[in-house]
């Protein structure tokens, strides 16, 4: 009964009233529609196949290949750049070492130059000091000489005065001078 109701509905729906009594309840087993389905299926499959095999798949394949190529290239480029960076670092380190050596050399030079200048200046200064001290020595000698001379004079004068005061006229000036001179020298 239920089947009959279903088939009646089916027959009405599919517009096949003459087969309604015998038509199966499953639309899948309604053989009158098979040729239609198969026809449209074949057309669909042919269309999809040609669209895919002519347009879509080659395009996607080429895009994927391009991307693979791009990735490979990029990796190679990155490898290259890395190599360059390593080289640059080495060059930098070398430059650093060179610069250090140069700097220490310059420092050495400067030190040597300064030392030479210093030595020279010291020598000059020494010479000057020596000259000055010699001069001073001489001046001191002169002063000393003149000072002893005048001291002798003063001593003779004082001796004369003392003698004159103690024993006037008894001892002459000459002998006093000689005695004082002898006393100073002794």
């Amino acid at each position, binding site marked *: 009964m239920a089947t009959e109701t279903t088939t009646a509905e089916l027959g009405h729906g599919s517009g096949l009233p003459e087969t309604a009594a015998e038509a199966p309840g499953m639309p899948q087993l309604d053989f009158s529609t098979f040729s239609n389905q*198969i026809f*449209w299926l074949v057309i669909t499959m042919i269309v*999809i196949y040609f669209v*895919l095999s002519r*347009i879509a798949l080659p395009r996607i394949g080429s895009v994927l290949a391009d991307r693979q190529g791009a990735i490979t290239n990029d990796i190679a480029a990155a490898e290259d750049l890395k190599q360059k960076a390593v080289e640059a670092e080495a060059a930098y380190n070398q430059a650093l070492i060179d610069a250090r050596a140069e700097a220490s050399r310059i420092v050495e030079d400067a030190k040597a130059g300064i030392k030479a200048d210093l030595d020279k200046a010291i020598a000059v200064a020494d010479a000057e000091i020596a000259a000055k001290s010699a001069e001073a020595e001489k001046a001191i000698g002169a002063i000393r000489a003149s000072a002893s001379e005048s001291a002798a004079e003063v001593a003779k004068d004082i001796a004369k005065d003392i003698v004159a005061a103690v024993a006037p006229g008894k001892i002459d000036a000459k002998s006093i001078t000689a005695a004082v001179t002898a006393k100073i020298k002794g």
Partner: protein
Amino acid sequence: MAEEAHGAEEGGLVFHPMDQFIVKPLFGDGAVGMFTVTNVTLWMAITVLCIVALLVLGTSRRATIPSRTQSVAELAYGFIYKMVEDVAGKDAIPYFPAVMTLFMFIVFSNFLGLLPMSFTTTSHIAVTAVLAMAVFLFVTLLGFWKHGLSFLGIFWITSAPLVLRPILALIEIISYFVRPLSHSIRLAGNMMAGHAVIKVFAAFAAVLAISPFAIVAITAIYALEVLVSFIQAYVFAILTCVYLKDAVSDPHH
């Protein structure tokens, strides 16, 4: 009778789970002839449009850094390509477009069939049987064309003891000819079953007492059906690859 009784009792509990599969003419109400434009035509055309939109329009920019659509297209391409390569071997790469065609058609038909009020072309045995027979005939002819009569070696298992070989050959031959049957009925049956079950629960939803349960059940089954739709397309494609492997690889090994 039971339905009518139910219908009278519950006020409109009617089961027509198979009505969704009826092939109807799109224009007018006449008989379905071979060239009639029917809902089959409509939904197959929509399938074609979807495939074109995804695989042709989606990749039209040929971007090295893909957009989302292009990513999906490339994913599908890579998925099927790898499947053909892994399962059927490198010799089967020339038939990759055919496998891709089958897969894309089935997966889009299945997914479009899940839309409410839509028509599932792959739930019809006529459709899946044609696909399965096409695969079967193609594989068989390809095998004979590539290997000549030595293609029959796939039935003669040389690694088995000699006594067992005739029996195994018989089993192999039977299973070989059952292939298109199981190949087609698996897909149509899965699609039909899922949709019919959803329809049955939809009829239950009309009854107030159990409608919350029915609606939850529809949701759950719908989720399962989404999964099944994809898996069945995948299984169809992978079995095609398995059959292709018989044809392209050396039958004696």
